[in-house]
């Protein structure tokens, strides 16, 4: 599938909130209950259609444990979108959101689109964080909010696509400087015969938004 842009995403949040499962559900459309814990950082990608344009999402899935925070911080930069995940059945994961937001502020690129994800919404009987609380938090911090279930795939696709759409909107509004790859967006150049040894054009021609 062809694509016009590459967007970099990062998935962050407390340990065991389902970050890797969200990614797996999104990239492979499957759920694995016994997913190995993420050591450091892992990588996934998928091409999606946003506003009739192909966009390749390049997603960094990170370890949630405290010890790894210094490692994952170096991946904040150069990401256009961040998926900040908490577990609706674990209050503490919601309480830590402020810390994550602060981390993002300090280490991320400007204009990053952040989506707050309340995951595991299939376990509504064990819910500890109400949807309204998540919405309020997102409103207070200027985030997009969505509740998902990596298990049942509810809203998973939406979470990623919404982020991409928001980034596209920002591109249209001229918020992102596309000559600067630091914003986490690359324009994909279709080369008829891509020669691996050819260096990528350092100054891509600006194209209109999505």
């Amino acid at each position, binding site marked *: 599938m062809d694509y016009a842009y*590459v967007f970099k995403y990062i998935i962050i949040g407390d*340990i065991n909130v389902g970050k890797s499962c969200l990614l797996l559900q999104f990239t492979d459309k499957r759920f694995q*209950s*016994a*997913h*190995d*814990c*993420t*050591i*450091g*950082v*892992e*990588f996934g*990608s998928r091409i999606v259609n946003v506003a009739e344009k192909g966009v*390749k999402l*390049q997603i960094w899935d990170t*370890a949630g*444990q*405290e*010890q*790894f*925070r*210094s*490692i994952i*911080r*170096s*991946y*904040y*930069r*150069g990401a256009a979108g961040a998926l900040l995940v908490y577990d609706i059945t674990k209050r503490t994961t919601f309480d830590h959101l*402020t*810390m994550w937001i*602060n*981390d*993002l*502020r*300090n*280490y*991320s*690129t*400007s*204009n*990053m689109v*952040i989506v707050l994800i309340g995951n595991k919404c299939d376990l509504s009987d064990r819910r500890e964080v109400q949807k309204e609380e998540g919405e309020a938090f997102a409103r*207070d*911090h*200027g985030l997009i909010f969505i509740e998902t279930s990596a298990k049942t795939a509810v809203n998973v696709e939406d979470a990623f696509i919404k982020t991409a759409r928001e980034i596209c909107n920002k591109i249209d509004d001229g918020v992102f400087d596309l*000559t*600067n*790859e*630091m914003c986490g967006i*690359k324009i994909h150049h279709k080369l008829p015969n*891509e*020669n*691996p*040894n*050819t*260096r*990528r054009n*350092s100054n891509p021609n600006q194209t209109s938004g999505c």
Partner: protein
Amino acid sequence: MTIGSTLDTSTNYLFPSSTSEDTTMRFSLTPYPGEKGFQQWKDAISVAIRMPGGLPPSIRQKLWISLATNYIREIHLDWDKTCRFAFNNFSNPDDDQLGIQIVKDLHRTGCSWSSNEHDRATLKRVLLAFARYNKSIGYCQGLNILTGVILDIVDMNEEYALMILIYLIDSILPNFFSNNLRALAIDMAVFREWLRMYNSKLHIHLQKLQSSSHDASGTIYEPPLLNVFTIQWFLTLFATCLPRRATLRVWDALMIEGNEILFRTGLVLWSKLATSVLKVSTADQFYSAMATLSVQLLDEKIIDADNLIKEIYNFGPFPTPMLSDLRQKFSFNITPFQQLSASTTNIPDDGTIKQGVVRSNSDELKLKDNKRSKRKINTITDDETTADEDIANFMSCFAILSSPSRNNRLEYHSNDSTTINNNPTALSRLTPGAYSNLPTTHKTNSIEDSLSLDISQLRQQYKKLKERNKQVQIIVQTASNEQKQRSRAPSMHSSTTNNSENFRRPTISSLEFSTSKLPSSVCSISSGPIVNHLLIKPTDIKRNQFKKTVSIKSSSSSIPIPDRQPKVLQTIQTESIPQEKVQRSKEQEAEEAAELQQELDQLLTSLNLEKPTTSSSSSSSLLSKISDEKEKSTTHETIQLKNVAQTLYNYEKVQVTTNEKKESPNLIDRLLTSRSVQIPKYSSFNPFPSRSFNENVAVNGYKLGLYAPNPTNH
């Protein structure tokens, strides 16, 4: 047995002649007594593990257990006592926290690992036992995978598993999992440097891919490409990237030869992957290609176990001398983090270095690291001081591969070479997490040279720090006076507020000013072209959400001034009433801390904005006024010298942390007491102590009373 037939003298050690007795013994593979005997035995094993097919499983089990037993004996650990302590069924205070995390990961310990509930319970007990034994590590993800492998080898025997885990973590991989993976950070830098020498073609290619992602100023934001994979390889000791057979053979070598095996294995693997990696032309393609390659690696399609081991040993005898040099170099380079804030290097536009401690032409890597560290200083939000430094250190490790000569904003603004030295906050204007590209015009000389240079530089730096400390002391004390003034004179509300208002104005102006001209003034990320929308947005974050991280930066606290003003007043009022003071809520304290931090920063600025010479003279006059302050004596301590500037930075956090621990009468008192507690032992930090004895663990062990009073033969 095939091994026995091919080994000559070694056979005696591997398979003692009196087999009838030995086979029945639990430790039939134990080395001969004495250090020499042990070494001979190890040499013999070293030969055996290189043979095609490697060790048979039964021998492997005995080998691992023998090595672990030997280690336990070497460190005089009372094993029975340790086991009783580590495996007790009673709950310890820390257990809940540890247990929760361990339980979460039990189901996530490798898909291939046993799904049996009983086995999982065993895994949990061993992990918990290790966490109780080594409190400095506790539980870190990755340990579950390692323990899973070990349990498989020792037939689920918990005690053996714990013993081997202790040997592996404490002796083979000292500090690897502790201290926010600090040693791993160093090793990543070392690894990249070694790869540069081992496979320069691959290194250059990767560097090219990485540096293609940069902004207009040349700042690379792409982390070193190798890291994603190499970090995981190192942390799981290849258990997740190689087939089990190969993993175990690497582990055999690791147990015998030490952690250098990790580097050699990593280098061999990357070189095998190089053919494919060299074909990709973007970082994006690299990661996509690696997804396929990882699967191939796991299927033994890239390299088989025998060849892998062969190549690992082809590097030559152990240890490779270069490794310890590189480690020293990089651990030194990223070590004097907090000293940087006091005396930093400035690079004028013409590229010559006018002032600063790190002047060595031969050591531009260090320079880069320092820059990186500086950049991180102001962006710290963690609860722990040490953690913050580690972040900076870790970040600095990532820097080694930065691309050649492009000036970034740092150099651009740093043409004032004198004032920056006194002002650690000046660093905040640099975008956090950036990867700089300093001109790499000089080739690194021999490591010995740079080390000897480093020592003399350290001496110089120490002198400077001493001077600096005097100044900082004054700032702290002035701030303390102010604090007292505020709390003692409630009738002075308006004047105090005006005062702080006055303090603020110059900051704001200097903040704007600094973006264009003054590199040394207090400023913030807002000075760079990159501003996170979250920062500019007037968010109404509830104060209590900031319990721990207060308002983070001088910059962020200086932005929403108008909103804060009434609150400031309120704080002062509350503070002036002694009865309420005791009941002060955390939010108020946090605010107060932020206020004070801001003022401290401003004081720093005002000192710096004047000529440095006058600042020091005015300092001494101030000093005489407040010489009766009791803080003075505390601040004179040598180690604190290095930390003063850093501590000022972390002031607000320190504040909050201390508040949580204990209420003490004076903010400054609290700062000073907490400072002496939080000092990281960088000066004596040795990330890789001798294999036989790990100081940290020993101390830990003594505290726990796990050591036998006399060396016991176990």
